[in-house]
């Protein structure tokens, strides 16, 4: 399936937005976490600053999110991972509320109760979890619901290559295949599960090869390229919408930053990231748009500025919002 000019431009702008979001967050996250503001003897304090706790960023992994979500409509479900921002942005989760959530503010998606790994937006049918392998079963559930309700909605489960060794992966693939659920299982293979490379954790090279064990299509995307992802995913989406069942797609992608911010990355070869960055998918798509006459230099400037403005606006909104009252901690355990 050919991507329309609108889709290509949407993917480009969304990738720019995601990258700027992650880079902005990387900076904001450091506020208040470094000496001399923190406890004596520490090099870094994960629990300080306006955005405390763990922070997993997806800079470099934009093509997976936009290449898949470019096919989706509002009624389709996306279940993300502990590294969720790129998926959420590509699915259309409002940036203001998402950012406010990470600042722990009352205006956040979960009124500050969830935080960065636990973003819930029922309206845009997005959710995620800090538990590895947890995205696949609920995507099956969304698929089952669509099927029972007679809708052509699909559900996407994103997960890392590390998560593909979790029992929930195998159980969900079998169940979705057996019941022909409209689910697209997308393995985001950045080669690392924290410090463990794929070769030390997975007995075969391609997770997508496991599809045959469940009698479903397995699709491989070897390059970290939005257009390639878009085209490769198209038949899986179509199959799901037609009620023909699930597919498994694996995309090779690149993690530019640490597993979490503050990760010393002692396990990673020194020049790996600088080499990966030479294949940055964002300038690559810009070049393609220009070569097809779909974007001029001036238009590029406008697009980039617009994306950055949205990000800046979201961070400003989050900063200006109020914290919830302490006692609010006791509410919302039950609906």
């Amino acid at each position: 399936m050919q991507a329309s000019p609108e889709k290509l431009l949407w993917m480009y702008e969304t990738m720019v937005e995601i990258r700027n979001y992650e880079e902005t967050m990387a900076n904001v996250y450091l506020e208040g976490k470094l000496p001399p503001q923190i406890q004596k003897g520490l090099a870094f304090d994960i629990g300080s600053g306006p955005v405390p706790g763990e922070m997993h960023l997806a800079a470099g992994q934009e093509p997976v999110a936009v290449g898949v979500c470019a096919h989706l409509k509002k009624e389709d479900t996306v279940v993300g991972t502990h590294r969720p921002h790129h998926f959420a942005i590509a699915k259309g989760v409002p940036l203001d509320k998402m950012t406010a959530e990470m600042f722990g503010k009352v205006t956040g998606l979960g009124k500050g109760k969830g935080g960065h790994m636990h973003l819930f937006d029922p309206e845009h049918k997005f959710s995620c979890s800090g538990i590895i392998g947890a995205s696949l079963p609920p995507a099956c559930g969304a698929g089952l619901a669509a099927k029972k309700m007679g809708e052509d909605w699909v559900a996407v489960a994103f997960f890392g290559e590390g998560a593909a060794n979790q029992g929930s992966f195998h159980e969900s693939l079998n169940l979705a295949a057996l019941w022909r659920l409209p689910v697209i299982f997308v393995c985001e293979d950045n080669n690392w599960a924290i410090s463990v490379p794929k070769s030390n954790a997975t007995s075969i090279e391609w997770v997508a090869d496991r599809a045959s064990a469940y009698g479903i299509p397995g699709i491989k995307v070897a390059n970290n390229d939005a257009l390639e992802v878009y085209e490769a995913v198209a038949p899986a989406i179509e199959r799901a919408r037609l009620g023909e069942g699930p597919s498994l797609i694996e995309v090779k992608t690149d993690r530019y930053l640490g597993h979490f911010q503050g990760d010393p990355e002692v396990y990673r070869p020194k020049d790996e990231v600088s080499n990966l960055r030479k294949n940055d998918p964002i300038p690559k798509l810009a070049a393609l748009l220009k070569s097809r006459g779909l974007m001029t230099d001036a238009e590029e400037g406008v697009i980039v500025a617009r994306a950055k403005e949205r990000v800046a606006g979201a961070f400003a909104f989050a900063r200006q919002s109020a914290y919830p009252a302490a006692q609010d901690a006791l509410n919302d355990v039950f609906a």
Partner: protein
Amino acid sequence: MSTTRKLTMAQAISEAMAQEMTRDPNVFVMGEDIGAYGGIFGATGGLLDKFGPDRIMDTPISETAFIGTATGAAAAGLRPIVELMFVDFFGVCMDQIYNHLAKNTYMAGGNLKLPVVLTTAIGGGYNDAAQHSQCLYATFAHMPGLKVVVPSNAYDAKGLMIQAIRDDNPVMFMYHKGIMGLPWMAYFEGSSNEVPEAGYTIPFGQAKVVREGQDATIVTISQMVQKALLAADELAREGINAEVIDLRTLVPLDRAAVLKSVAKTGRLLIADEDYLGFGLTGEISATVAENLDTVVLKAPIKRLALPNVPIPYSRPLEQFVIPQVKGIVEAVQKLMQARMAEGVAA
């Protein structure tokens, strides 16, 4: 006398593992990111360099498989130490733990030994939200068949870890992130202390009186011990002398130490970072209630723990639900003013 030096709790734990691995070739370690990374919370720091990848094994993210593997390897004669990064993640592999590791010895009529040490990080206070901040030690203590060790400082951690490795039963070894002495997380200074170089054991089921006092007893465990000590300092300035008891292990539980102290002070606060409902605070309260024929209370028992809500992310919310030093001070002050109902008091 062997030499001592000041160690963080993380260093003490990895030193204990290293010494036991040197002593016993059947001991080995498995878990996620325990090799090159040295464990996300440093509990296996330096072990890969010393023992190599055959004995320090990074695992796939397959908790059911590798924790079940530990049970199987122990049944076959090895002594695995197996780490699961955060206690919260045990949800994905609970069956291997509570239906197998915890029960097989019993179902085999005692004819099966399962010397597995399951290590894991517990606790919040750094805004990691509902899936990465729980303590859950009471959940494991609730299920028969698991010993549950929850150290509050480096010295205890080393002795208890060596004891755990030598025990012929499954032992949960649960370390609070906020006392490991990591360079990237605030911690309580009191948790890093003098640790002998030579190996030593600390028997399970022996609580420690970490501060003596006669006005009120604070029973606690893990990081909360450090908070209770700071609270006791503050109370002492007002002339209230609190006795602080570090339970150190939940299974076995040193009920006698609790009763002895409460018999002396007549006032009891249980300070806990686990959930309030159906947990440690209830268990200790019940122990005292069942012994009111010998123990005389001057005030009703007080419990401080996480109200029964998932742990919220936002800082003001998290600080509100997790008991802090100030909350312990206030609870003891209230305890000093409280009275038993007429006709019940001594």
